[in-house]
């Protein structure tokens, strides 16, 4: 899967979906029927796409569980509202991961039906960088607290 081909919002560039305000939503709900395009791919490809979606949903659920855990189990931190901010960031990130999971699933399903190149995505890299930055920030916070 190359990254160069279709990193942009494919939904917005395709004339068929432009007519619909909820084009993306329609694509999510029924990627086969909006409109009936291409031909049904080998079911194994569809199921592989579905498992990829489920792996992302689990990632999102894990982030949501992390946010709930931070809100419920962390003691109040020296910086006011820092605990709440951390929880909200994790929860929003989890929701974003779920949103992106269904969008990517629908676009992949459509590309497979049309025999096009599968959509690439920068999202995994962005998420990895965000998680790494969060970890670094927490390490710094722990070190400052240990020193002071």
């Amino acid at each position, binding site marked *: 899967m190359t990254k160069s081909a279709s990193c942009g919002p494919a939904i917005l560039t395709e004339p068929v979906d432009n007519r619909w305000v909820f084009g993306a939503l329609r694509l999510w709900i029924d990627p086969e029927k909006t409109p009936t395009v291409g031909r049904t791919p080998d079911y*194994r490809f569809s199921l592989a796409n579905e498992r990829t979606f489920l792996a992302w949903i689990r990632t999102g659920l894990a982030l949501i569980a992390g946010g709930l855990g931070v809100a419920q189990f962390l003691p109040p931190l020296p910086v006011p509202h820092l605990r709440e901010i951390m929880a909200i960031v994790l929860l929003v990130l989890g929701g974003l991961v779920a949103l992106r999971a269904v969008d990517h699933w629908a676009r992949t399903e459509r590309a497979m039906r049309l025999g096009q190149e599968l959509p690439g995505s920068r999202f995994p890299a962005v998420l990895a960088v965000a998680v790494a930055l969060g970890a670094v920030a927490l390490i710094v916070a722990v070190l400052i607290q240990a020193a002071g």
Partner: protein
Amino acid sequence: MTELWTPDHGAAAERTRLAWRRTVLSASVVGLLAARPAFHPDAGPREWVTAALSALGWTVLVALAYRRARGLGRRPPHPGRRTIAAYALTTIALAVLASSVVML
């Protein structure tokens, strides 16, 4: 298509069914954590409503996954469609619910 069915050599349907099961386990962790504040001694109506809503979301996630796992038993399996969008939207709803609880 149906008469030319060959055995599921790659175990694609089986692996997808197990992926749904794993996802239900993750959803259960979220459901339990979201309902936990309702069991605190000082819990009030706010905690009860939150717990009820998250239990509802958890029920939807379990039911959808169960139905999809059963559907995968068909030969050949049909690709998932509305179930997947519904699953993602329910997950997002849980995230929104939990965020509003933390913010309020």
